[in-house]
């Protein structure tokens, strides 16, 4: 089932990606044409198109420009250099992972509290759900600046933003998961006179794992967004968000796009990693085949 799905989807995906790249090149011609005709005079159509795909500061850089910029800044710069994409990516990744781990731990602990304590369930849970509807990301600049003024700089403020962005999806998913065993299964555990601890570790926790992994994927994507946005307001000089901001100031569109693609690559590999762990774990537990 799974394998045939892959085989049948690959061709359509490749076709659509190919189509996107073609239309990207086509759109780049009119978008950059104003700049080309300002810089060069008396071009025939073919030269005009060629120039519009290879401008230095284009309005829309073409895929091959972005790729070569990414290759240049990834492989041909020293890793600790300020112009290396790996350096900036690593700074962002560190904050993302730190915030994600903290947010996950806190989220699971809070979910355990909510499931086991009626008072917490009734008083905290409505607020957690309401918080999902609120654009929490708006607080990011404030956290950065306030923490800077107390003397906390660097990784921690960004990690805190990542933490609270990944925290809420994990609480919601985990509460749902821990409550997913039905009454019959819980009664079965009781007839075996299972202690509350055994009930948690042998029934509730294992059956919550599919929910946990689903929210981990949401959470890590949110963490990365938090880390990138956290790099915007502080006048930060390193990290993918800072790189985008620098690109904006100097009109270096190729730099913005390459930072964007690096961020996309990071997000994709993090989600892929969790997906891999999920498949492995759930297969070993015989939840999926």
């Amino acid at each position, binding site marked *: 089932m799974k394998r045939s799905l892959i085989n*049948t*989807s690959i*061709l*359509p*995906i*490749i*076709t*659509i*990606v190919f189509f996107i790249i073609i239309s990207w090149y086509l759109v780049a011609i009119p978008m950059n044409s104003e700049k080309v005709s300002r810089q060069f005079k008396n071009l025939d159509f073919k030269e005009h198109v060629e120039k519009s795909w290879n401008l230095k500061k284009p*309005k829309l850089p073409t895929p091959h420009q972005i790729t070569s910029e990414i290759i240049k800044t990834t492989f041909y710069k020293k890793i600790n250099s300020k112009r290396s994409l790996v350096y900036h990516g690593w700074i962002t990744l560190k904050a993302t992972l730190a915030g994600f781990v903290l947010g996950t731990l806190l989220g699971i602990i809070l979910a355990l509290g909510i499931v086991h304590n*009626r*008072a917490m*369930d*009734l*008083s*905290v*849970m*409505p*607020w957690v759900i*309401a918080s*999902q*509807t*609120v*654009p929490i*990301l*708006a*607080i990011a*600049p*404030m956290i950065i*600046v*306030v923490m800077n*003024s*107390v003397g906390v700089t660097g990784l921690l403020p960004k990690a805190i933003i990542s933490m609270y962005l990944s925290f809420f999806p994990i609480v919601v998913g985990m509460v749902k998961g821990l409550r997913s065993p039905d009454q019959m299964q819980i009664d079965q555990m009781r007839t075996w006179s299972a202690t509350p601890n055994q009930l948690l570790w042998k029934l509730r926790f294992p059956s919550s794992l599919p929910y946990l992994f689903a929210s981990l*994927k949401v959470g890590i*994507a949110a963490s*990365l*967004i938090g880390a*990138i*946005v956290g790099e*915007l*307001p502080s006048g930060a000089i390193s990290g*993918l*968000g800072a790189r*985008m*901001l620098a*690109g*904006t100031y100097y*009109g270096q*569109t190729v730099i*913005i*796009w390459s*930072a*964007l693609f690096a*961020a*996309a690559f990071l*997000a*994709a590999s993090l*989600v892929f990693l969790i997906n891999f762990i999920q498949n492995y774990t759930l297969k070993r537990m015989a939840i999926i085949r």
Partner: protein
Amino acid sequence: MNVFIILFFTVWIGGWWLNIRLSYLKSSHVTKIFIPTLFGLIILLMWELIVIGLNINPVLLPAPTAIVLKFSNSLSILWIDFVQTLIKGALSGYILGCSAAIITAIAIDKFDFLKRGLLPLGNFISALPIVGMAPIFVMWFGFDWESKCAIVVVMVFFPMLVNSVQGLELVDHSRQDLMKTYNASYTQTLFKLRLPSALPFIFNGLKICSTLALIGAIVAEFFGSPIKGMGFRISSEVGRFALDMVWAEIFVAALAGCLFYGLIALIEQRLTFWHPSNQK
């Protein structure tokens, strides 16, 4: 130890005790609303007391009363920002993006090939940090609300597309066969069976996107905006350490987010009354 610190701990322990007592009451509509409200009020009270008690600098954490005061004193500025960011930027982008996604979903639903290619891609793109495209859109469409609208369109498009396609796909086959025996045309099947039964999925997408739209519009303003708008106000007031104004803006954003979400949920309940989750 001053009086406020002692009061802080009294409120903490007292509130804790009260909430535990209340939660053992028989659950009803009253307790379901009353307990979380009480919890929120206790937190606010503790916040106020700790700020006064420890004499915390308002630059770090302003007291709730200071925020409320600022809120009521600057209603006109908050209204201008609200219109600029949420009505012009977020709402227009939300409506454009969501309707474009639903129309695209109906269009690609006819072609299995497109569906198989776009669904995984759409899922993938939904996980990407699209907010990062904000600086590019600000360059293309200028500082005003048009660029915010554009970023919101891109942010909401893919989650909405994926949800609508999934909803259109999941129609019961026997019902579709029934429509065929009625000799229903494609449009009749679409409007009388498939779209209505896709509504739970479409509304799920609309709910996810409502938060995304607010985030997109606010964050895009960090990259450049005219001298109004919530994102602009937040980043400039943070720079001046006027945190009470920042909190007032966040309060507006939170309130707007909740109301918007609530409105969508209300419409959903009206339109999908037939769904098992809405039946008692």
